[in-house]
């Protein structure tokens, strides 16, 4: 691990100024950053520890009934919060299926969506060709071991996926990431935080240098929402495919469906066409739901070893819709 200097932030304004310097990173839970440092994925000169910054942790109610979750709130504290579990079961479930109990006591809700891909070539200790690690070096996964890789939105330069379960749930909930920056903060819709790889797969998200997520806002409530995570072992494993669904129902009819899939693309993948096709469909009409799901999968482009993920993701979507329907309305 390359040497760095550590700074303990006690004032957010000063932390943002310091965070704008070159080769400087923020540290919150540390469950990703420490591994990046070990692998050489990040080689900062300075590390700013923001975990103890006042006002960045905790969950508060918004005037419209929604919730604001402070960025440094630990994952377990978000998932087990009664308001979160009642109003946004999809988020609570996604978090509790993430990592392990002890990791969730460290990892923060603001940091988790910024985790990087689990692509084995990207994380290789021996430094294999990877356009994310070394732009221009090529993508080892494109024609290599790619059974866990993207089926949507990939490019010749990168076929990696974003693995975050909470980010997938937040995308389905149309959450807003609230940021701070020395030149002023902004609000980023969950769908706009992560980027597709294109020709610049080394870029994961739209945050500027020195920009810090300080909170996440959730509007309204989504009691009829659910998260399904399919993986190769029952617990403590990344998803092969995951699905986050939030439904608005009137009787047995779908008024609005919001669906995001995880681990199928470089960002949480909303099924916009499927959502539109589901409006007005009865929850008992399985063939109409199946047809609606198929519409968004017309854009799926499986790689050599991951064609199975297309059917798996379709099935996961249908099953998660059923799970959401089964939830109590409020």
């Amino acid at each position, binding site marked *: 691990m390359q040497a760095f200097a*550590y700074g303990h932030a006690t004032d957010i304004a000063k932390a943002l100024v310091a965070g704008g310097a070159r080769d400087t990173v923020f540290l919150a839970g540390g469950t990703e950053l420490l591994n990046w440092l070990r692998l050489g994925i990040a080689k900062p000169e300075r590390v700013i520890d923001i975990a103890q910054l006042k006002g960045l942790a905790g969950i508060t109610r918004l005037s419209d009934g929604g919730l604001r979750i402070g960025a440094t709130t630990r994952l377990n504290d978000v998932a087990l919060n009664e308001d979160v579990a009642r109003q946004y079961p999809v988020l609570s479930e996604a978090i509790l299926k993430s990592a392990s*109990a002890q990791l969730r*006591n460290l990892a923060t809700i603001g940091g988790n969506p910024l985790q990087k891909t689990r692509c084995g070539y990207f994380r290789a200790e021996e430094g294999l060709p990877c356009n994310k690690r070394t732009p221009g070096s090529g993508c080892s996964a494109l024609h290599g071991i790619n059974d866990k890789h993207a089926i949507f939105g990939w490019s010749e330069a990168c076929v990696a996926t974003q693995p975050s379960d909470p980010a997938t749930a937040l995308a389905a909930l149309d959450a807003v990431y609230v940021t701070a920056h020395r030149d002023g903060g902004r609000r980023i819709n969950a769908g706009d935080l992560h980027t597709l790889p294109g020709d610049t797969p080394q870029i994961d998200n739209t945050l500027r240098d020195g920009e810090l997520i300080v909170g996440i806002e959730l509007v309204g409530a989504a009691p009829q929402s659910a998260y399904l995570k399919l993986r190769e072992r*029952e617990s403590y494993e990344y998803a092969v495919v995951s699905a986050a669904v939030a439904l608005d129902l009137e009787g047995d009819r779908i008024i609005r469906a919001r669906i995001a899939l995880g681990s199928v693309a470089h960002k949480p993948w909303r099924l916009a066409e499927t959502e539109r096709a589901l409006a007005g469909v009865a929850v008992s009409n399985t063939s109409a739901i199946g047809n609606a799901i198929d519409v968004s999968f017309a854009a799926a482009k499986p790689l050599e070893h991951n064609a199975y993920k297309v059917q798996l993701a379709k099935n996961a979507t249908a099953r998660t819709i059923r799970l959401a329907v089964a939830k109590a309305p409020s």
Partner: protein
Amino acid sequence: MEFRSHLAVALRVNGRHHEVTVDARTTLLDLLREHLELTGTKKGCNFGECGACTVHLNGRRVNGCLILAASAEGAEVTTIEGLADDGKLHPVQQAFIDQDAFQCGFCTPGQVMSAVALLREGHAKSATEIREWMSGNLCRCASYPQIVSAVQAAALQEGGS
């Protein structure tokens, strides 16, 4: 803001105050093992994947390899060495022995620390729940059935005491 590549860290470990000067890269795990010679906490993967380094930080279980020592400034840390009460094993330690819940023993300190926290969190209501909330601790000897039995036995004892 002030940045340091070496810094003094003050914290309490198993009820004793310590002040140690460390390189900024030092993890809590390495502080415990290399500076305080508390080698009961094990270094397995050093990537947060195995749970062998599980300790309690301010009463909550965490992976010691994923937190910088500097971030633990002022913290209260409990390790496997701090569980026994004046030579008398903690009920979870005793249950691991009684239920034969280990073979090589390398993962055991982390398993025990995780189980103690799990009981405090109230996640021992069923074998399924125990398996889920213990999933962050891998056992390559695959003593999993006995580990679940040990946690259940400790939970029963706790409930009955």
